[in-house]
């Protein structure tokens, strides 16, 4: 009995430090990856169980570069920004991290760079910066993020369902679109599938409509707002943007119960053909068509008001940045240089459904989902996604809360615009 007790006590004495060492090892493993001089860790966001384009490209890189080990740390996209911030603050973030260009989101590259968490990048990324978007990637002359995609943010439109409903061409004006809404409502369908209970979709619809109402008139509106020469409240374009959402709602353009719907309303509506359009990034058209091969989807710009100018949003939604605390900067820069090569940029675009970031000039969009917006892209009639330029996350939050309030009748347009201004100035 005494022997048993002694053995137990000895076990306890040994177990405590062993457990401590294991716990510390587990904690450090998340950040440091392996000891391989050519290896590094890579964090990116993921929203489904499909293999991420980053994972595919990392595997292809490891195959073509024997001896390099990339340890992948995918994170759920709903908590990605906060997870990344916590890891950076705690000193255990991955060596290479997926960021978003500009400011305005928790994982925005320039916000993280200003806090000293990012390392300036080499020259290979400079040639990839979309035209007119330098301010989303640079602080002074230092580049902090390498874009990986060119995404068109407009309307994903189901042409198969539209043809079945008797609509042969995409409306050229908002007024035409509203007329179509009435026809579709009578058939138990809706023109737009809206996820009114999901803040990102409310932010997206507002931004996409603002392209024709605000940025077509004044592409430098964000710059003007920064200097204080304009506000949301005193810009007619923003007032018209919100009024358009109210008008679409009143005309029955959204599905019944849209104000509380989630993203499943969009995926189900578009893939089943009960709705014709959704305000989602252009790359989603490919995903939806793979889920519903009998439906053809294309990317369209939201139609302007009568007499208005057609305009859309385009730019890089995703970028890669280097953790300033990383000790594997050479290995990471080699990987980023490889990614910047045109054939690899094209490969990323193929997998993700985006347009290659390596340059619109060399891309043939004929026959692709982007064909309808090709003239706009070729003529430069697009602006970057506004939220990537705005100074903080609160402006987008004011939009999502405010627009849902417009749909439910809780808010007026004046109230929403005032909240957006207050959020910008905070």
């Amino acid at each position, binding site marked *: 009995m005494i022997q048993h007790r002694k053995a137990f006590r000895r076990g306890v004495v040994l177990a405590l430090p062993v457990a401590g060492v294991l716990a510390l090892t587990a904690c450090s493993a998340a950040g440091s990856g392996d000891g391989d001089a050519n290896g590094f860790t890579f964090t990116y966001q993921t929203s489904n169980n499909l293999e991420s384009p980053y994972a595919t490209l990392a595997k292809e890189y490891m195959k073509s570069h024997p001896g390099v080990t990339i340890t992948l740390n995918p994170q759920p996209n709903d908590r990605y920004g*906060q997870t990344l911030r916590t890891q950076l603050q705690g000193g255990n973030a991955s060596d290479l991290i997926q960021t978003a260009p500009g400011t305005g989101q928790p994982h925005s590259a320039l916000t993280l760079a200003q806090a000293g968490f990012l390392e300036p990048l080499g020259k290979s990324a400079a040639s990839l910066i979309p035209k007119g978007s330098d301010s989303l990637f640079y602080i002074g002359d230092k580049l902090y993020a390498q874009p990986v995609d060119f995404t068109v943010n407009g309307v994903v439109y189901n042409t198969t369902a539209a043809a079945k409903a008797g609509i042969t061409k995409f409306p050229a004006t908002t007024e035409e679109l509203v007329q179509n809404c009435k026809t579709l409502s009578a058939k138990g369908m809706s023109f737009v599938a809206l996820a009114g209970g999901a803040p990102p979709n409310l932010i997206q619809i507002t931004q996409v409509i603002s392209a024709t109402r605000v940025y077509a008139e004044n592409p430098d509106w964000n710059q003007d707002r920064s200097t204080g020469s304009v506000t949301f409240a005193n810009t007619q374009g923003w007032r018209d943007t919100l009024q358009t959402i109210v008008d679409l709602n009143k005309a029955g353009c959204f599905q019944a119960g849209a104000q509380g719907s989630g993203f499943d309303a969009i995926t189900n509506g578009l893939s089943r053909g009960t709705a014709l359009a959704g305000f989602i990034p252009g790359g989603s058209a490919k995903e939806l068509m793979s889920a519903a091969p009998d439906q053809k989807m294309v990317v369209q710009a939201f139609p302007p008001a009568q007499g208005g100018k057609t305009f859309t949003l385009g730019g890089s939604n995703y970028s890669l940045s280097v953790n300033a605390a990383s000790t594997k900067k050479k290995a990471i820069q080699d990987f980023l240089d490889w990614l910047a090569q045109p054939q690899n940029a094209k490969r990323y675009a193929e997998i993700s459904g985006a347009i290659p970031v390596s340059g619109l000039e060399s891309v043939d969009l004929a026959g692709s989902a982007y064909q309808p917006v090709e003239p706009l892209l070729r003529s430069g009639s697009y602006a970057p996604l506004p939220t990537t330029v705005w100074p903080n996350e609160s402006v987008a939050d004011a939009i999502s*809360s*405010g627009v*849902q309030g417009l749909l439910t009748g809780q808010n007026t347009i004046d109230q929403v615009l005032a909240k957006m201004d207050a959020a910008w100035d905070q």
Partner: protein
Amino acid sequence: MTASTHRGDRSLAAGQRPATPRAGTPGRPPRPRRPRPLIAFGHWWWALPAIIAVTAIHYAATAAGGFFAFTDWSGIGSFEFIGWDNFTRILADPVQLGALRNTLLIAFGSVVLTNVIGLGLALALNRGLKTRYVLRVLLFMPVVLSPLAVSYIWKFIFEYNGPLNQFLGALGLTSLQKAWLADPTWSIWVILVVVVWQNTGIAMVIYLANLASVDPGIEEAAALDGAGVMQRFRHITLPSIRPAIAISTTLGLINGFRVFDQIMALTGGGPAGATETLATEVYKETFSLGNFGYGAALALMLTVIILVFAIVQQRVTRDRSKEGQ
């Protein structure tokens, strides 16, 4: 070694542990003194790791959060000490005042409803009914389910195309169909229904435990004396279960103030902030919008509110009959 120990004298000072064999065992050789073990059972410091862990993880973290409530920290980088500014902003922000109203509504609404329904169920299932054990299990089951998972099921039920609206449609009540979770008037009540449904079981069990100690003989005697059901309940049952009321309402109130999972799963605080509470605002400001200092100030306010109401509630429900004894 002294002479006294040779004689077997055990007149040790009070509190001193005997180091040698007890008196009255003549002929038994004294046991050799064992070396003090490295780890022995029954010592207070066995609790030390737990005390350190609780202090470091809970109290130190809370204190640090309290400190950041007086800063403008964004969650990364440097920060500045800004005094009471965060609290001033909170009290001037109609969104936060709305969240405070919702917090109080859910806390008090849930504590009243869960306790009234829980007590009713406990009384119904206390004695007599043959199926009471099965019914107790069924009614307690929601308590052990994950609030988040259950809330997603409720979300499905309350969706516009969900079973509730379909049921109303089948009854011909199409005018009552609505987007329940996106309705500014109804959404907060939907959340209250889900919270009450999930927490009633725990109140029922607390009352059942206390009712088991109430002597049926007293009630029978009162009934023989002509006391009605309500009189027996008011003058015998209710005073007997006062401790259960105190515990159940205190736990219910604290849980009501902290409701988070159900709101995030059902409405995310919407529509347009109609179901935001202090708990969801703490999360949103701190983790979604990067206003760590402001979120910490909200969390500190929530902690103080819970503390104040818990103390007040304890004083209101304490048993005064034993005071002065």
